[in-house]
């Protein structure tokens, strides 16, 4: 509830009571665990306190006897009592130290349980090299994928080829499997059936990091970091000329105009008081600029203009079109208008490719693509 990004949603839907209730439920679940732990600890704490009491009484008893028979003076009496109490504590502490050390291994084991999770993708040795001087074709061959823990496949027996300079679009309703296809393409997941090839080689044979370097992506759920605008685009690979080139080619100059320190302006309040808060559309421009700056051989844009207004959307698509000229590009969009400049359009329905072609051929076929296009177009007539 403290997350400012959720503030609008909560207020608009007056969901504060609902969320407070959820918070209370979660908190009471946590508290009941703490109470159960304290209850289990109580009897052992009582035993310890009993022993401690006995030790103090015993010490004082002996000290008083020794003092009364003149064996020790007042100072020695005090030293004896003080030393005995410190000794009890120290002996207990030393044993506790060993107990603590033995239990520390349990905590370390919990840490290792996570640290030893297998890195099957990133740690696998590369068996093939990505061709350096050219872009290869990307091919899905009978690919199916079911998310872990799910029974229904999100993608079913999908096959297609995208050639090096082609622009492809995946369209379809929500849940049709578009974003899952992108995840498979980026090798965030491996297919449960079938294979994916880049330049004729199974993508699992390439080094994971090398393969990911191929892609320039802008995701639907992009994230802006609370660092400078420049760092949001370049990360740790700053090249001023390249950055200026990206600024010239995108709508970023409009964003920079409202930044008091230019590209060094911080976005978000975590690190600077002179930071700016960008609108959703401006943030999306930054996400697109980030993809341009990376200059990958394959451009992947998942709903890249969802947060832009129609005027900016049109301009953004022109920028994207220029950027994608001569390189492989993959678009995912609900907006059918954005697919017109693509050479290949794949229409997805329930995880399957049900239609394939360019805009005119799909319109002529009067299938699902035609229906979806017409449904959207009627609002603009």
């Amino acid at each position: 509830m403290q997350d400012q990004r959720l503030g609008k949603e909560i207020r608009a839907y007056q969901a504060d009571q609902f969320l407070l209730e959820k918070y209370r439920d979660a908190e009471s679940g946590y508290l009941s665990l703490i109470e159960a732990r304290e209850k289990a600890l109580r009897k052992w704490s009582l035993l310890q306190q009993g022993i401690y009491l006995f030790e103090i009484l015993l010490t004082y008893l002996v000290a008083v006897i020794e003092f009364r028979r003149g064996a020790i003076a007042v100072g020695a009496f005090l030293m004896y009592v003080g030393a005995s109490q410190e000794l009890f504590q120290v002996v207990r502490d030393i044993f506790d130290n060993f107990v603590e050390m033995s239990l520390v291994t349990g905590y370390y084991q919990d840490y290792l349980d996570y640290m030893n999770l297998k890195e099957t993708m990133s740690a696998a040795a590369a068996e093939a090299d990505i061709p350096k001087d050219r872009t290869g074709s990307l091919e899905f061959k009978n690919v199916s994928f079911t998310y872990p823990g799910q029974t229904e496949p999100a993608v079913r027996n999908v096959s297609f080829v995208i050639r090096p300079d082609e622009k492809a679009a995946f369209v379809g309703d929500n849940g049709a499997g578009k974003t899952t296809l992108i995840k498979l393409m980026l090798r965030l997941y491996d297919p449960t059936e079938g294979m994916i090839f880049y330049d004729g080689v199974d993508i699992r044979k390439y080094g994971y990091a090398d393969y990911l370097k191929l892609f320039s992506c802008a995701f639907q759920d992009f994230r802006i970091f609370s660092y400078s605008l420049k760092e949001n685009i370049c990360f740790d690979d700053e090249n001023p000329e390249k950055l200026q080139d990206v600024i010239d080619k995108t709508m970023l100059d409009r964003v920079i105009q409202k930044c008091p320190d230019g590209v060094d302006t911080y976005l978000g309040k975590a690190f600077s008081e002179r930071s700016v808060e960008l609108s959703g559309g401006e943030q999306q421009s930054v996400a697109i600029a980030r993809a341009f700056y990376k200059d990958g051989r394959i451009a992947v844009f998942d709903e890249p203009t969802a947060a832009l207004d129609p005027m900016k959307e049109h301009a953004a698509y022109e920028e994207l079109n220029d950027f994608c000229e001569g390189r492989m590009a993959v678009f995912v969009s609900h907006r059918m208008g954005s697919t017109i400049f693509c050479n290949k359009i794949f229409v997805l329905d329930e995880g399957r490719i049900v239609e394939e072609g360019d805009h005119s051929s799909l319109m002529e076929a009067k299938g699902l693509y035609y229906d979806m296009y017409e449904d959207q177009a009627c609002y603009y007539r």
Partner: protein
Amino acid sequence: MKKCKHLNNAKLVLQIWGEQFRECPKVSIYEACHGIVSKLKTVLEVVLPAMVVDSLTGSRPFVRTAVLIALYACATSVLGLLDRSTKLMQEAYGYQAVNLRFNKINRKAMSVDFKDTESAESLDRMETAKDSVWEFNDVGYVICNDLLGNIFSFAVMSAVFVSLNPWIYPVVLLMTVVSTYAERKKLKITHDSYVMESKAKRRVNYCR
């Protein structure tokens, strides 16, 4: 079999400490300094006032009492200063040591298979790992600060204690062993409970 388990535990403890020492040696150095300084302060607070009282109540020259008082005042002041300073530095470097562990978790989170960043089971596992860092990273503190300081204090206090009344010594040790058994049970309960608590805490943190 049990002996073997203890031996493995001891090896693991040394391994954890060794990792921490390699990454952030200053934390162990300051922990050791703080352990010795704080226990030395405690020992002096027990021994010197008693000597002052005996000096005052006996027929010793006043100069001796004055020297003892001055010694006590100076020693406690200097040790108090060192105690605070080493504690502060030890906490600062301890925080750095914890952050170095968190960095490892960050790197792991970036390199695990993507499916392991999306499943609830893996998220719970990561939360437990993050919580456990605060616990096991204390191993250096336990060895360098607590154990070293306690052994030093144990040696001095045992000498004082035995010189006054030797027979009570084994009784106290025996009682303390029983108390330690209780402590072990408590720590076991705490550890068993924290896995569930970490999961519940992740949910509370989300709702917050």
